[in-house]
C-alpha cells in the first residue's frame, strides 16, 4: 500500500451487516480489527428488503456478483451517492440470489452489478415489494488495439477506457489494461452499445510522453471493437505555485490535483513548502487544476476560474506552462454562483474552458 495513504474499508460477509470502517485504517499502525454485526434480514418483512437474482443470458445463476446500491428513488426524487439506510454492497450466493437490507419502505434502489466474465451494468429502480428482481448480465464487448511510439510497439503502458456519458445513472466506472510485449491490449467484458473515450494513463505514459483521448463506439455484446493504434506523442509540463491571497503559509500536506476532463485519469502531488508544484506528461487536452486548503476556495482572480465549476481551473494545455499562479482566497466556496449567470455569461465561461489554462496574473510592480 502507498505509505502516504490511509483507507476506509468496506467489509462484506454472509449473515452480517456490510460495514464501512468509521475511521480510516492506517496500514502502518499494525493489525486492524473490524467487527461486524449480525444482519436481521431473516426477521424483516419484505418491505425493507430488495431481493434479486443475477443470471446470464441463458438464465444460469451468476454467483459471487457484487451488487452495489448507488441511488435510491423515493416518489419522484432520486438520491445518489452515500445511502446510509441501505446495505453498502452485497455478494450473490451460489444460486445468484441476493438480499439488500433497506431501512425505508416504498423505495426503489439503483444498483451497479459487477461479476467476473460479465460486463458491468446498472439496474433499477428495484422496488422493495417482495418480488425477486432478475438482473441479466451479458458478456459485453472486447476492445483491442495497440500502442506505438515512433512506429515501435510500447509494452507496459496502461490504457484507460471510460464511457463518454458520465451521467450518474449510466456511468459504470472506468477500465484499465496494460499493453503486452507486442504493445497490444485487450479489454474484456466492456458494456456493449455505448460510446467511450480511450487514452493512455498519464502516470504510466510519463516516461514516454502522452496519449490523448480518442473516441470509440462499441457494438453489440459478443462482438469485438478495434481502437486501432494509439500514438504516444510528447507530453507537456504544468508547473506553478499555490498561493494564499492573505499571505499566510500553506498548511503542511497541501495537495494539488490535475484531472483530465474527457478521461478518467488524474495526477496528484503534495506541493512544496513554498507552494510550488510540477506535473509532467500532460496530453494536449482540457484539464482541471485544483488544490484544497481548509477555509479557502479558488479565487476568481485566476483567469481560468469559472463559477460553473468552482472546484478548480478549467482550460487546455497546448504547451509547457512554467509559472501558473493558483490563488486560493479565504472563505467558503460559492457553489451556487452559477445560478446568477446570464445565458451569455454561461456561454462565455463554457468557451473559456477551451482556451489555454491560466492562473492569476503576476502582481504588477510599482
Amino acid at each position, binding site marked *: 500500500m502507498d505509505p502516504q495513504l490511509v483507507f476506509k474499508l*468496506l467489509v462484506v460477509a454472509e449473515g452480517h451487516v456490510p460495514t464501512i470502517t468509521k475511521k480510516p485504517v492506517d496500514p502502518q499502525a499494525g493489525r*486492524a480489527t473490524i467487527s461486524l454485526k449480525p444482519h436481521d434480514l431473516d426477521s424483516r418483512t419484505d418491505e425493507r428488503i430488495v431481493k434479486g437474482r443475477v443470471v446470464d443470458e441463458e438464465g444460469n445463476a451468476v454467483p459471487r456478483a457484487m451488487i452495489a446500491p448507488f441511488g435510491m428513488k423515493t416518489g419522484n426524487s432520486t438520491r445518489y451517492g452515500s445511502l446510509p439506510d441501505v446495505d453498502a454492497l452485497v455478494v450473490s450466493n451460489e444460486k445468484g440470489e441476493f438480499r439488500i437490507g433497506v431501512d425505508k419502505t416504498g423505495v426503489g434502489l439503483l444498483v451497479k452489478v459487477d461479476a467476473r466474465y460479465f460486463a458491468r451494468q446498472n439496474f433499477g429502480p428495484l422496488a422493495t415489494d417482495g418480488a425477486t428482481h432478475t438482473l441479466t448480465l451479458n458478456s459485453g464487448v472486447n476492445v483491442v488495439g495497440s500502442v506505438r511510439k515512433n512506429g515501435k510497439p510500447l509494452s507496459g503502458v496502461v490504457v484507460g477506457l471510460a464511457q463518454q456519458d458520465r451521467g450518474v445513472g449510466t456511468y459504470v466506472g472506468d477500465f484499465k489494461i496494460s499493453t503486452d510485449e507486442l504493445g497490444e491490449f485487450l479489454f474484456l467484458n466492456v458494456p456493449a452499445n455505448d460510446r467511450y473515450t480511450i487514452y493512455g494513463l498519464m502516470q504510466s505514459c510519463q516516461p514516454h510522453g502522452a496519449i490523448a483521448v480518442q473516441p470509440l463506439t462499441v457494438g453489440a455484446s459478443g462482438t469485438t471493437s478495434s481502437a486501432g493504434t494509439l500514438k504516444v506523442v510528447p507530453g507537456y509540463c504544468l508547473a506553478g505555485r499555490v498561493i494564499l491571497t492573505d499571505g499566510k503559509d500553506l498548511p503542511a500536506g497541501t495537495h494539488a490535483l490535475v484531472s483530465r476532463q474527457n478521461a478518467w485519469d488524474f495526477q496528484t502531488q503534495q506541493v512544496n513548502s513554498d507552494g510550488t508544484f510540477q506535473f509532467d506528461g500532460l496530453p494536449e487536452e482540457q484539464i482541471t487544476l485544483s488544490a484544497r486548503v481548509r477555509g479557502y476556495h479558488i479565487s476568481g482572480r485566476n483567469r481560468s476560474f469559472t463559477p460553473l465549476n468552482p472546484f478548480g481551473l478549467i482550460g487546455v494545455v497546448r504547451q509547457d506552462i512554467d509559472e501558473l499562479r493558483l490563488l486560493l482566497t479565504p472563505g467558503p466556496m460559492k457553489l451556487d454562483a452559477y445560478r446568477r449567470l446570464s445565458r451569455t455569461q454561461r456561454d462565455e465561461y463554457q468557451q473559456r474552458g477551451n482556451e489555454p489554462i491560466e492562473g492569476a496574473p503576476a502582481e504588477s510592480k510599482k
Partner: protein
Amino acid sequence: MTSLLVLTAVVASGHDVAIVDNRPQLVGTVQTKNGRGIASATIFVSTAGPREGIGVL
C-alpha cells in the same frame, strides 16, 4: 471518485504487519462482536486519503 479494490481477508492469522519494498501491507482481522473470526469475508478499499492534509478528490 470512489473505487473498490478487493483485499485478501486475513482471519486470525498470527503474522504481524509485513513490509515489502518499504510499502506497508494492510493486515487485519474480521470478527463478530464477540471476537470470533469470520471466514470468507470480502474486504474492499472504499476510499483512500492522505495521511497528512486533506484530500483533493
